[in-house]
């Protein structure tokens, strides 16, 4: 059997440009969007919504603050708004403005005892822009051509579903202490199942596209705990609390597990699976009477079709 040629050289390597601060932005943005969406639904139904709205705005603000701490020139942060034509990072920043404007105004009017319909409308607008914010975040990763694990198109639905799941998971926690509607655990349960499907789809997409082995290993490493604890156990706790509202603590734990699982997955995707393509060449040069040899991408799990 002919041996497969090996290549020593610049392997695919873990990116070091974005760290936990960047991961926190994706965590905060997703969770915050989920909470804002839940707050909008609750506000429209005339139910308790303010805690979810405030928490959602805080999550998103914290995420953006972490990014501010990561960039090399934080005093120039305003320059992030310069390139809406093509940059998803600019679009994320632009969408954040009406998000905080509507959300903040809704809270102020609510606390001032203003008309409920206006508050519900503003909360709905905040939730709508938050969905755009989350979509921009998902596309930020997709546009990073240097990181194969982020280029996978099935990452977008995973990030969208995970963000909403995390938010509704926190909402289930708030519901347990009476700060959110009682339907929160059921909604979190449904979204968790949706995220599970998106995660499986993401894994299949990575296998089909072909990514560096280290990326695949990072994703596979979290798989069992992510599935069993982050979804199986969380779903069991949430499902148990649905027919017995007296077991609110179970619902809170289940919701927090759902949220934490999403945070863990995002931290893994941004920090551990973010392996570069490497700098391979497709073939060797012909020198003298020698021949050229085709070269596989070194340290890749599979070859892209």
């Amino acid at each position: 059997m002919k041996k497969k040629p090996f290549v020593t050289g610049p392997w695919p390597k873990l990116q070091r440009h974005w760290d936990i601060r960047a991961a926190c932005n994706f965590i905060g943005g997703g969770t915050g969007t989920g909470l804002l969406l839940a707050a909008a639904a609750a506000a429209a139904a005339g139910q308790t919504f303010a805690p979810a709205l405030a928490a959602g705005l805080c999550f998103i603000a914290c995420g953006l603050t972490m990014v501010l701490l990561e960039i090399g020139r934080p005093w120039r942060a305003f320059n992030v708004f310069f390139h809406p034509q093509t940059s998803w990072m600019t679009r994320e920043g632009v969408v954040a403005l009406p998000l905080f404007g509507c959300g903040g105004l809704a809270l102020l009017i609510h606390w001032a005892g203003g008309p409920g319909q206006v508050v519900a409308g503003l909360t709905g607008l905040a939730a709508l822009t938050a969905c755009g914010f989350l979509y921009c975040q998902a596309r930020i990763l997709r546009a990073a051509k240097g990181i194969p694990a982020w280029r996978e198109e099935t990452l977008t639905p995973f990030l969208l579903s995970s963000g909403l799941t995390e938010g509704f998971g926190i909402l289930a926690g708030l519901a347990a202490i009476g700060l959110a509607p009682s339907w929160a655990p059921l909604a979190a349960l449904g979204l968790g199942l949706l995220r599970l499907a998106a995660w499986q789809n993401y894994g299949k997409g990575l296998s089909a596209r072909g990514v560096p082995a280290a990326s695949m290993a990072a994703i596979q490493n979290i798989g069992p705990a992510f599935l069993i604890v982050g979804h199986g156990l969380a779903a069991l706790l949430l499902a148990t609390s649905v027919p017995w509202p007296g077991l609110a603590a179970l619902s809170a734990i289940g919701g927090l597990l759902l949220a934490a699982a999403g945070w863990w997955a995002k931290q893994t995707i941004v920090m551990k699976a973010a392996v570069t393509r490497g700098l391979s060449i497709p073939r060797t040069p012909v020198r003298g009477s020698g021949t050229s040899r085709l070269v596989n991408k070194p340290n890749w799990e599979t070859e892209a079709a």
Partner: protein
Amino acid sequence: MTRYVMVADLRRCVGCQTCTAACRHANATPPGVQWRRVLDLEIGEYPEVQRVFVPTGCQHCSDPPCVAACPSTATRQRADGIVTIDYDICIGCLYCALACPYEARSKVDEPVYAYGDDPTASETARFDPRTIGVAQKCTFCVDVIDAGVAAGLTPGKDRAATPACANACISGALTFGDIDDPNSAVSRLLRENKHFRMHEDAGTKPGFYYLWDKEALPL
């Protein structure tokens, strides 16, 4: 139109790193930052092993993902294909570095010197504070090109209008020039040799070509 590209003949490169040294000298990059790198690849199993030296760096792509990603428009592409960074508006988010499939970008958060904590006289004289905390990469020595063109010189032909790496190459492996000029050295090399570009599947259309064999002569 003009489209500047670099051609690297992989049959000629001997991995001496003179281009790397010349680039660092010309652009005063700090330790650990190489705008022009030479990869040392060992391919195959004994006894059928080939060693290949691959000059690399910013590929000045025709469809540069770094330009699309940049939120501040600090990274731009000129009409002649050269991708530049405006250090004065870059926010240092390094999104461009993650968008680049060629690992061509670096960031230095604080001044680094070659010999300990204190800069040498040369480092003091050439230190550019604008490069701290922002993205940096190969510019194809754009200042040299612009000055040369303004003086009526031809980049790739006249040394005073040519990037330092191509000027310094001891084996004639690196050639710079205008691919839109059919009479340029790069156009001739690409006509007469088989070539590829790195990560062509990424769709970035790099302006950096690698020669690997001579073209079959027409009958």
